[in-house]
């Protein structure tokens, strides 16, 4: 068994929101005990609806937030406990691509400066040995990789379209040759024809650099296209984890079933033949403390047990786990 590159153990990320001086602060349970592993060269997809904690999870992993509890083990060392240069040294291997290429690029820097900034920072801190010429050569090389013309080096982000801006964001993330990239909805703000270009680019780069990805998206078809394994998140917990194709073909958790049945397929004949599972109500607020299965109030299969006991993620088939009382350990057929 190969050691996982990243191992997240019981990660909890709570935020306190103050309600005023005399009130007891409320707690938003954004991530509520997540375990996951990413193996070298593999891509893990993370799907779920807005507010389920996907982005928070990625930000906690890379330590943009300080996790409330739990461990983030990157090649064995715990990121959650690191500080200063040690943290920077680990982060050299974990980089992030953000959803919105408008707000994640500094409008006052040229794209050349944006892409070289991570290199500059590491050189300045003495964590990387490169001279000026080498840095410039590296930046131009990165621009080639992501399909940006050298002529555009001195342009500013506003002169580019959304797709090209996302290429800049990807080049910046690649600058330090990381082993793991956290991509938070990298194609969601793009038009269909541009989305396909960026997805193909990510696939090519992944092959060349042999990187691992955590790929967050709300678009199930995109995730199934690009990921090896997919984890489904609901209200801060992972309810199902399975190989991408298996999950799309036969989701097991009632929430995954509803999610996959709701995703439209661009084929009128197939659409007419499909039966949708329409969930009642909205996603509950992550503020209240919840008992039992987090999904029980919207679940079409709920049992009395679901309201009091929280199901744990357990393996039902090799490589597939579900957190639901409908399934017994080692069995992927509901009882």
């Amino acid at each position, binding site marked *: 068994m190969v050691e996982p590159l990243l191992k997240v153990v019981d990660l909890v990320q709570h935020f306190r929101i103050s309600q005023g001086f005399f009130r007891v602060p409320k707690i938003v349970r954004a991530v509520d005990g997540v375990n996951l592993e990413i193996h070298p060269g593999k891509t893990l997809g993370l799907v779920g609806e807005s507010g389920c904690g996907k982005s928070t999870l990625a930000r906690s992993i890379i330590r943009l937030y300080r996790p409330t509890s739990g461990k983030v083990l990157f090649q064995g060392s715990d990121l959650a406990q690191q500080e200063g240069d040690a943290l920077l040294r680990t982060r050299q291997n974990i980089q992030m691509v953000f959803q919105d290429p408008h707000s994640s690029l500094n409008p006052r820097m040229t794209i050349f400066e944006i892409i070289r900034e991570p290199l500059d920072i590491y050189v300045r801190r003495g964590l990387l040995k490169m001279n000026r010429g080498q840095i410039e050569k590296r930046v131009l090389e990165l621009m080639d990789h992501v399909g940006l013309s050298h002529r555009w080096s001195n342009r500013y982000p506003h002169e580019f379209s959304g797709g090209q801006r996302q290429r800049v964001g990807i080049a910046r993330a690649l600058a330090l040759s990381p082993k793991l990239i956290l991509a938070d909805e990298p194609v969601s703000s793009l038009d269909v*024809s541009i989305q396909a270009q960026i997805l193909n680019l990510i696939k090519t780069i992944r092959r060349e650099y042999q990187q691992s990805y955590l790929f967050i998206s709300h678009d199930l078809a995109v995730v199934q296209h690009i990921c090896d394994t997919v984890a489904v998140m609901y209200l801060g917990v992972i309810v199902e984890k399975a190989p991408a194709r298996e999950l799309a073909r036969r989701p097991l958790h009632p929430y995954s079933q509803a999610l996959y049945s709701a995703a439209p397929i661009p084929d009128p004949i197939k659409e007419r033949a499909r039966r949708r599972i329409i969930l009642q109500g909205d996603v509950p607020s992550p503020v209240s403390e919840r008992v039992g299965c987090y999904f029980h109030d919207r679940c079409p299969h709920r049992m009395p047990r679901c309201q009091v006991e929280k199901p744990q993620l357990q393996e039902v088939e090799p490589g597939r786990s579900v957190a639901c009382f409908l399934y017994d350990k080692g069995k992927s057929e509901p009882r």
Partner: protein
Amino acid sequence: MMTDEIILEVKNLSTYFHTEQGQVKAVDHVSFVLRDGETLGIVGESGSGKTVLNLSILRLLPSSVTVHAGGQILYRGRDMMSLNESELQQIRGNKISMIFQDPMTSLNPYMKVCDQLMETLILHQGLDKKTAKEKSVELIKHVGIPDPKIRAEQYPHQFSGGMRQRVMIAMALSCKPDILIADEPTTALDVTIQAQILDLIRELTREMKTSVILITHDLGVVAGICDTVAVMYAGRIVEYGTVDEIFSNPRHPYTQGLIQSVPRLDGSSDHELFSIPGSPPSLVNLPAGCHFQPRCSKAMPICAEKYPPEIVNGNHRCCCWLWHRGEDRG
């Protein structure tokens, strides 16, 4: 169900804007018909003119920025272009109503939900306050919002995105309009909520025999809900046909590219996605001839010279030189 009666006919509609960079041809020579009970999908990428087209139909664009608005919009035979403001008021919100992408910006944050619904009912149906109030609670219930009496007294910010869109639908359908224009009604929503809202639109419009124009960039949504589809590129309709025709036998290279570039849940992930090179053109500086020609893999010399004529094949229309003289060269 769809009948043959035409309720809306758009003929050669053009809407140009005047900007500092020059004239923007947002909608250029667009024609289509909408039949009674039909759901027409208008697909295209951002900037293709979908929204401007529909704002033009309702004449919601300020005349100060619109340079040239040519063509006709015939609603039940009456030309919307020749109506004055008060005649338009009789149609807008009453016979033709609209729902927008972002329900937060289209609801008044200072007004209770029931007051906003009552406004429409009092204005268009001449109901008194008491009846209008009863009717609005009924409408809120009808669109599937639980506790309608309590919810009616609340403000938009107390509603979730999906619930706000339900309020918008209630408002749009309160006068049983002939036509509902839905501009990206589910784009801001999650998939499970999207499924709920599309279901609601489908059910209610069928019940009221309302025709729908659905503007979207999501081909999956179109496949699930529409009868006919118009594909827009750079301000023009490049292909038009029934949903089955468009998806099983797309003729325009842009439509073909669009369909192939969407990853599919039921597809395999081994292949590289098809992608259309380049990006959509700027509407200020459109390429000569066919606007898609610089990105088209099948471009011929003539494509850069003249805009292709519309090739009609039964109910399927396509603007592309490939199909000129009926030759099957696609």
